[in-house]
């Protein structure tokens, strides 16, 4: 493509906002009125930047000016691509803007171009003391560098303050407060240049993040965790000499005026568990304002940032998953803003890491501007192979880059259960191991005396347990008998009562039969010698109790049969009852005693 073939008439109005609220960037807004004088149909426009500016160019956007009637938000940006032209000197970089419609000969078209430059303001002098004010220098050309012939051009420079140290005076210069106007100039040949410089006061914060790493971690349990590691420097004039806290506290506006002491991060609405810390711990100077539409975090570095001072910190917050993740079956995509939530920040290198859950596949990242990207893995809690990480890197990032980017991936919902299952099985294994250990016999020597004694003792305990069981069943039988007596007094059914006694008698006999082999085998153990007398006593007492209960039962039944009065029966039974109570107590005590061994 050769430019010289076109004779293009361009009308320029350049409005330059030299560092508005920005720290370092220069915004250039150009309204271009493009007229095609023929003879060819034109479909693209070339934008040219000198090397000095091209190096600092962070963001470039062109939009059609025709959408005047539409609201401001709906500006459609036109596709821009960098082009290499062989015929022109390498000191100029070209970008070509594809026009939405072809401009025929004689037609005209108006184009808005927005270019943002970083590091274009140079502090002069480079070192200042706390008392000095910060002055910066900006260089540009009064003529807009253009490969085309320019019909009319004018330039407006807006400076942050009306305190201007010096500026290049040309014949057609007008100054209105902080605004300087050059032009209009007419009929300029292509590539005309005429340098101008501005030297002016600027105490705006020059916050530059030399590196910002944003880590966005997705958890399908409902959270997107964003962690941002900032490495910040004050990019203005470097401070020299004393820093007096006394002066800074007493007169902050003229002692250390160029210092900035806080930054504001505009977090998405519903951000939660926000933290602000650095390498050595939490930083307590931050304020969080929450309303329904946004969350505003004001962070104050540990110390005021004077020129050239550095700091580093981390902010982190959680976001609700459903606000940022869109899914259909297994296909999901994350839609988040790319840049930092701090809108007054210029970022030299921005690295965005999107940590996807373990087991994601088919990962694809898409951003509205060219970026470098690659993949890593990160090992976090309960990971086996690590989580896939998409890393996006971009240099020279300005707030205009705060646009949405997308990461598409596939993730099955069942994989979510992996980690809980792992934890559950881990605990299960632990308990199983404990059970296994408790039941395993870990003694080395199976024939040592102490081991044998221990084993014998265990056998004895099993036997005693059996004895206790039998006794307890006997006691339960006694209770049954008592209950039948009570029934008798209520219903007067003598036959049922007798039957109960008969069956109880039989069972008790069976139980005593059961007891015999137990006692004899207990006698065989030497280690049971101590406890044996007690057991025997217990058995004897129980038998006595049994007899007494039987006796009581038969007496009571007899009394009933003879139709004697309740009082009479009570009287007869009373003595027996006393004995039974005493015996029961003794049996209980003995059981308790044996239990305690």
């Amino acid at each position: 493509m050769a430019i010289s073939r076109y004779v293009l008439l361009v009308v320029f109005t350049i409005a330059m906002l030299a560092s508005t609220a920005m720290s370092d960037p220069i915004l250039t807004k150009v309204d271009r009125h493009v007229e095609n004088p023929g003879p060819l149909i034109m479909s693209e426009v070339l934008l040219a930047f000198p090397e000095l500016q091209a190096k600092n160019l962070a963001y470039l956007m062109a939009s059609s000016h025709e959408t005047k009637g539409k609201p401001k938000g709906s500006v459609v940006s036109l596709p821009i691509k960098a082009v290499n032209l062989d015929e022109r000197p390498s000191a100029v970089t070209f970008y070509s803007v594809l026009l939405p419609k072809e401009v025929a000969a004689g037609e005209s078209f108006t184009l808005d171009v927005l270019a943002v430059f970083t590091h274009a303001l140079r502090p002069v002098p480079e070192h200042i003391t706390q008392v000095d004010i910060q002055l910066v220098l900006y260089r540009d050309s009064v003529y807009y560098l253009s490969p085309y012939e320019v019909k009319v051009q004018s330039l407006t420079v807006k400076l942050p303050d009306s305190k201007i140290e010096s500026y290049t005076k040309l014949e057609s210069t007008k100054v209105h407060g902080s605004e300087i106007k050059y032009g209009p100039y007419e009929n300029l040949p292509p590539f005309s240049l005429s340098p101008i410089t501005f030297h002016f006061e600027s105490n705006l914060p020059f916050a530059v993040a030399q590196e910002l790493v944003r880590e966005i971690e997705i958890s399908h349990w409902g959270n997107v965790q964003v962690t941002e590691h900032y490495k910040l420097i004050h990019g203005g004039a470097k401070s020299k000499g004393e820093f007096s806290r006394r002066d800074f506290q007493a007169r902050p506006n003229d002692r250390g005026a160029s210092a900035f002491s806080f930054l504001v991060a505009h977090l998405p609405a519903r951000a939660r568990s926000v933290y602000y810390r650095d390498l050595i711990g939490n930083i307590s100077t931050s304020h969080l304002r929450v309303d329904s539409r946004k969350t505003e975090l004001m962070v104050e570095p540990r110390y005021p940032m004077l020129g050239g001072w550095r700091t580093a910190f981390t902010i982190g917050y959680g976001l609700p998953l459903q606000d940022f993740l869109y899914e259909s079956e297994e296909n999901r995509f994350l839609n988040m803003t790319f840049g930092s939530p701090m809108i007054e920040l210029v970022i030299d290198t921005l690295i965005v890491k999107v940590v996807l859950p373990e087991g994601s596949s088919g990962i694809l990242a898409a951003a509205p501007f060219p970026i470098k990207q690659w993949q890593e893995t990160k090992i976090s809690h309960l990971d086996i192979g690590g989580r896939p990480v998409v890393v996006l890197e971009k240099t020279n990032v300005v707030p205009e880059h705060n646009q949405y980017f997308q990461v598409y991936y596939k993730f099955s919902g069942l994989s979510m259960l992996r980690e809980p299952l792992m934890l559950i099985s881990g605990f299960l294994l632990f308990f199983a191991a404990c059970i296994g250990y408790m039941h395993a016999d870990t003694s080395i020597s199976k024939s040592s005396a102490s081991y044998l004694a221990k084993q014998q003792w265990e056998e004895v305990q099993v036997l005693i347990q059996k004895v206790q069981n039998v006794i307890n069943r006997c006691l339960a039988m006694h209770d049954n008998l008592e209950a039948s007596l009570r029934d008798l007094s209520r219903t007067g059914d003598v036959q049922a009562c007798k039957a109960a006694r008969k069956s109880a008698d039989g069972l008790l006999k069976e139980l005593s039969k059961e007891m015999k082999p137990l006692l004899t085998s207990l006698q065989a153990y030497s280690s049971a010698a101590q406890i044996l007398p007690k057991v025997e006593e217990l058995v004897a007492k129980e038998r006595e109790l049994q007899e007494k209960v039987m006796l009581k039962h038969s007496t009571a039944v007899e009394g009933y049969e003879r139709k004697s009065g309740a009082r009479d029966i009570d009287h007869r039974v009373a003595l027996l009852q006393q004995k039974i109570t005493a015996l029961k107590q003794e049996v209980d005590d003995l059981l308790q005693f044996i239990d305690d061994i």
Partner: protein
Amino acid sequence: MAAVANMPVSDLLKSFKLKTKQQELLIRVSILCLVYILAFITRLFSVLRYESMIHEFDPYFNYRTTLYLTQNGFYDFWNWFDYESWYPLGRIVGGTLYPGLMVTAALIYRILHFLRFAVHIREVCVLTAPFFASNTTLVAYFFGKEIWDTGAGLVAAILIAVCPGYISRSVAGSYDNEGVAIFALLFTFYLFVKAVNTGSLAWSLASAFGYFYMVSAWGGYVFIINLIPLYVLVLLITGRYSMRLYVAYNCMYVLGMLLAMQIRFVGFQHVQSGEHMAAMGVFFLMQVFYFLDWVKHMLSDTKLFQAFLRITVTCAVAVGTIALGLGMLSGYISPWTGRFYSLLDPTYAKDHIPIIASVSEHQPTAWSSFMFDFHILLFLFPAGLYFCFKRLSDATIFIVMYGLTSMYFAGVMVRLILVATPAVCLISAIAVSATVKNLTVLLRSKNKGVQTGSTKGSSSSKASSKALLDQSQPFQKNGAIALLFGAFYLLSKYATHCTWVTSEAYSSPSIVLAARGAHGSRVIFDDYREAYFWLRQNTPPDAKVMSWWDYGYQITAMGNRTVIVDNNTWNNTHIATVGRAMSSYEDEAIEIMRSLDVDYVLVVFGGVTGYSSDDINKFLWMVRIGGGVFPVIKEPDYLVNGEYRVDKGAAPKMLNCLMYKLCYYRFGEMLTEYGKPPGYDRARGVEIGNKDIKLEHLEEAFTTSNWIVRIYKVKPPNNRW
């Protein structure tokens, strides 16, 4: 309705009915679990109040070394020569620290990472002390069980879990050697007592390893290596020598000594230093005893044996004395160190080693702090001693000796309350457990009688049984109940006191200061970290920072800059040089600072906030320590009639020394309090005496927002043409 619902439940309970023993086991295990958790969470106040951070001074060094260990591996750590401290001397870190704590934390970190818990090493370090405190409660339980019974063990576990004396050094974030060392100390003692009780080689081997862990963790191991021989000696004297003791002590001593030599910082001290000689002496004495026993066994004639005994004992003592004397004279055995002397004699440090005396935690203990740290244990301790003497055994003799000796040391130095705490808790636990047990036995015997009477007996038997009981024990039941309630009241008071102390006094990280604002809100002074982080970010990486040694560890750990002196006070002369610079006039000081390559000077100043532990209040110690090495500095020069002042009446040398100038530079213009003249020092409550301070060779580089830390830059020398 309720009865119907209850029926199946009671049936179910019956079918699952646990034996008394099982019930007891269940209760015991659940109590222990609860105590374990309690010991951990009661130490988390600091994390909740502030954040998960490392506290105080020494823990920062430990944290830094742990970080190094996890990043560079064990061998690099072992061979680490640290250029960042003690400039220009440097410090051989691997050979001058007790690595137990760092290795433990790094191991926990590795294990967690192996199990895929991606925690930060800082969290591990912060929670190491509470974790070991929890383990200590378990050891206390087993120890109590060994010396008394399970009840005493349980009570001991509960008491030690919340005892402020221990909590003071083991809150979350207090990442110091003591955190694991108290666990190791108690564990070693427990294993040794177990070994003595059983005579088992396995237990005494275990105690040797426990001792090894203790040696690797803390310099306080000297207490073990002197207490155990002393205990053995007492047993020998009281005629309790046994084969069990012989096995336990010999195995523990020989193996423990060999293992301890593997720690570079300890090296051959076990055979070369005077502090360890008692153990060796007792070891040889033990052999003599064994030999005599054997001879006695062989000789049937008692007269002959008496003569033999006399000769052998004389010879043994003579040989021992000569060996010791020769060792001392030839310099093979080093004499006792100053630290050891200062432990035995509270006044020693004040006269001879100002650097030890200057540390507040090395001061003799005030009564109030005993009360503060032990509360009711102070009264229970003698009661426990009474019970111990009543049931004298090898184990109780041990705990009595441990209690008494450590109580003495606790009286000498505030920080040694920590060592006494386990003993006090154990002995008090014996008192509580024995008392409560006696009372409940009384109550239970009676209850049973009443129960049988009321439920089963007829009216006559009920009356008779009641009469019987009343007859035998008049008012005993009521008395027992009253006493029980009293005991529970005391114990609950103890629990509330401990919680209060933990939350109010021991949970402050001391690096972040908190105060109550005018409206009752909490104001945080985070000036230390502000300054350290400024140093880290805004000074050249090889800058050398001069400050008083207290802040050395923090500057290297948080500021990542080289310091001249730090909390490892191994070189008194170097510290004295810094003290001298601080107490000289500026033009004299600049010579010293240039010779030390100092780039920045850091001072801590509390005049604006009223923070009293600042450098002006520590200044006399700098003068003393500096004057101890350089006689040019004389303490009286800084005093007026023996009084230390900073106002107009202060000594001229004081008003013009470097420390004064650096602290009060431009402070004279400052209004600190309403209704007071400018330059009113709130920490000392006076108006300063020198308001017009000019600095010639230094310039203010940074002052924190509350003026607590002030950093000055040493200006380069002026151009001479």
